[in-house]
């Protein structure tokens, strides 16, 4: 572990210097056309960039924090973003600034499922609430609170009160939690303009509220699939989007600005690392959030490992005698499952197969990774058992062992010796594979690092810290499996242990 700390420092130092090479520093909108643009997947900035700056080459990323990192490292020259978010970013990190000219304005609305009576009713209630709160000044107060001094509002956000009666049932809200000041994580709790407004609506109309947070690109699918009742997170109305979902009336109009790099790049220093550490882990007790993510990752990993291993063994035992139908079925299933990227499987399970049910993303992840582990264990068992030569099996038969006894007492212990090293690497890749569960609104370790980056706009420290945590997990898991496999390893027994059973 000790060797990793200098490595971390070296990586941060290198990346901090990387931005200082030749590059453009656009000063006005006129400079932007033709420069390299960044766009967060699923935002309207894709269309807006293409419309206003048609000659720009676009790079797509998942998070605004990634765009800052790209700017810092001269991967892109600018990106477009909501004006308030832009100001908040510029306040959080010294490396970027905004161009003050407004590119265009946008109207934010909440989104609802199309062509559904329940949804239409809910939408009507929501529009009614927008009108009412606009009329009585509630909405204006909210704007003052969140939008006048965004930096202050985000830093000093009081936890919201979600404990209200749910006599009319529960609503599920889809948000992106990396979008301050509209929806973000403060400490370990969701907060922000959109969240508070949704909470106020629910309180007024007697709904309970649960929030499911995903990538920005995941909000619309969550509503379309019916997984969530409505969605928000500074979602602008576009005709394109209105084809898939219904928009509520506009509750907030906002500007789109361009964010560009500042010329004076902050130099690397140990102080800087200390500051990053402080911001990433200590501030707002964010370590609790990291711990939560770690526990989620561990939960998915351990449950999938146990479930997958047990099922894999059961499936192997069912197929062992060579039942043709079962073997064909599981071979086909293995082929199908391993031919599709895990992230696609997760989304199909989450949005389509379990789209209507209340199954959480964590459970879906456990199912998906459990099945994948099951199939790995099944094929590993097949290969490991095949590696035991037929002669030993005949040897056992000729001494009078039954087929079952031969398998469990002769073949299985030796197959385990073959099985364990491969099993270990299967589990390690499964652990690393769980990093994609953020796609289906699971707040795992990787996703939490995005959430924190969305607040601090620290490009690297949270990533490196996350990498270190994963490495530590891998170390622990490998050590554990090694220990277990030694107890499986017949040749590692001591002479005393061998002789003990003879009770001499």
């Amino acid at each position, binding site marked *: 572990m000790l060797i990793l700390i200098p490595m971390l420092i070296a990586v941060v130092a290198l990346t901090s210097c990387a931005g200082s090479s030749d590059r453009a520093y656009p000063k006005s909108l006129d400079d932007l056309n033709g420069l390299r643009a960044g766009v967060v997947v699923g935002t309207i900035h894709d269309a807006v960039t293409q419309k206003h700056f048609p000659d720009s080459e676009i790079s797509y990323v998942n998070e605004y924090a990634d765009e800052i990192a790209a700017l810092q490292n001269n991967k892109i020259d600018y990106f477009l973003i909501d004006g308030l978010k832009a100001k908040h970013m510029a306040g959080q990190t010294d490396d970027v600034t905004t161009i003050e000219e407004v590119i265009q304005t946008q109207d934010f609305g909440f989104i609802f499922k199309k062509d559904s009576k329940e949804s239409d009713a809910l939408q009507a209630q929501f529009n009614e609430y927008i009108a009412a709160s606009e009329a009585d000044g509630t909405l204006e107060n909210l704007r003052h609170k969140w939008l006048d001094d965004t930096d202050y509002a985000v830093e000093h956000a009081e936890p919201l009160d979600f404990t209200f009666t749910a006599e009319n049932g529960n609503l599920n809200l889809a948000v992106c939690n990396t979008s301050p000041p509209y929806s973000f994580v403060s400490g370990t709790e969701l907060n922000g303009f959109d969240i508070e407004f949704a909470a106020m609506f629910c309180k007024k109309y007697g709904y309970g509220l649960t929030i499911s947070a995903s990538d920005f690109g995941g909000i619309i699918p969550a509503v379309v699939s019916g997984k969530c009742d409505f969605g928000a997170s500074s979602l602008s109305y576009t005709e394109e989007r209105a084809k898939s979902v219904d928009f509520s009336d506009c509750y907030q109009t906002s500007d789109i600005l361009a964010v560009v790099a500042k010329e004076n790049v902050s130099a690397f220093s140990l102080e800087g690392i200390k500051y990053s550490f402080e911001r990433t882990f200590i501030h707002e007790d964010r370590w609790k959030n990291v711990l939560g993510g770690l526990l989620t990752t561990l939960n998915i990993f351990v449950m999938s490992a146990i479930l997958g291993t047990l099922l894999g063994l059961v499936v192997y035992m069912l197929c062992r005698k060579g039942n043709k139908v079962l073997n064909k079925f599981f071979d086909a299933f293995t082929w199908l499952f391993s031919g599709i990227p895990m992230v696609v499987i997760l989304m199909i399970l989450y949005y389509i197969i379990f789209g209507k049910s209340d199954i959480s993303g964590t459970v879906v992840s456990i199912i998906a990774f459990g099945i994948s582990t099951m199939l790995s264990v099944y094929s590993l068992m097949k290969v490991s058992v095949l590696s035991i030569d037929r002669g030993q099996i005949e040897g056992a*038969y000729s001494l009078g062992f039954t087929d079952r006894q031969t398998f469990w007492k002769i073949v299985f212990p030796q197959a385990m010796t073959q099985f364990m090293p491969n099993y270990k690497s299967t589990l390690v890749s499964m652990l690393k594979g769980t990093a994609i569960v953020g796609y289906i609104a699971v707040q795992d370790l990787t996703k939490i690092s995005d959430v924190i980056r969305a607040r601090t706009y620290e490009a690297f420290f949270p990533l490196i810290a996350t990498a270190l945590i994963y490495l530590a997990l891998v170390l622990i898991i490998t050590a554990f499996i090694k220990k277990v496999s030694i107890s499986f390893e*017949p040749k590692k027994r001591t002479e005393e242990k061998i002789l003990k059973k003879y009770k001499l």
Partner: protein
Amino acid sequence: MIEVKHLRKEYPDVVPIKDMSFTVNDGDVVALIGPSGTGKSTVLRMLNMLERPTSGQIVVDGQDITAPKFPLNTVRGKIAMVFQSFNLFNHMTVIENVTYAPIELQKVDPKEAYEYGMKLLEDVGMAQCAMKYPDQLSGGQKQRVAIARTLAIKPDVILFDEPTSALDPTMVGEVEKVIQGLTEYKFTILLVTHDMKFAEKVATRIFYLDEGGIYEEGTPEQIFHNPQKEKTRAFIKQFRQFSCTLDSKGSDFLEFYSKLSKFALKHDIEPAVRKSIETLFEEICYQILEPKVKKSKGYEIKFDVEYSARDKDATVVVSTKDCEFNPDDEGDSISWSIVKHAVDDMEITMDDKGTNILTMHIK
């Protein structure tokens, strides 16, 4: 007692056992011999049902073990097998290999099993390796452990499937000694082997397998020293055959020599025997017969050699067609004297097609 009735085994492309019946009494030591591919190992493997016969019955002490759903593990404990490839359990020490089945299957007290196992290992000279794993042993040592492991379950019948074939020649002796030792303990033994001397030494009965069944059966004395049937003789004496024809189309002296030298090299024929074969060819075919046949058309002289690799002797048969030949006519000619000197036995016959057959034995 094992009774085998009309046993048949078919594989998709070959039928090694067509119809085989025999009875093995308690205490018999039966050696199964025969050329490769005659199904010796297949018979043995069917006796403890590692291979299922295509048809036929195997009745062990009155029970038909080929019956469907017969609990094979019960009979396998009685009829145990020692394999060519040892088949020790690689994840167990030597002593565990030996004691595992008694403790697990026969519920022998572990301490008793251990003591009996150590005694068996001592008998086969492997006690000092009790705590080693199979991969630390030589082939001969592994086979001795495998025999001890088989003895540990106290079987009535032991099947040895080419127990020494996979061994270095230097290790064959140690294993054969152990097997020979077993014959003194009244075990019923069936043994497949290619080692004829060993078979002769240990067996009470010999089955010579050929043509999909037991081709000839007898005591070792009968089979090895006085085989009755043609194929048995050829196999036992390890005949190597060589043949050359001279006819009116002409033939070549040099060709004969090159053929003979190839044959002699291939089968490692004794130089003295080879010299005698050459002498017979020269004298009979060239000195005596050729001048006689020159005049006649369509003659044929066949020169056949049958060399026994076991006895290191040869039988030469010269058959002549349309060619008058009477040894009495030769009198005391130099050539004939040389021939008589080279052979130790000679016989002349004539078959009904008018072929002279001169059979000579070279020692």
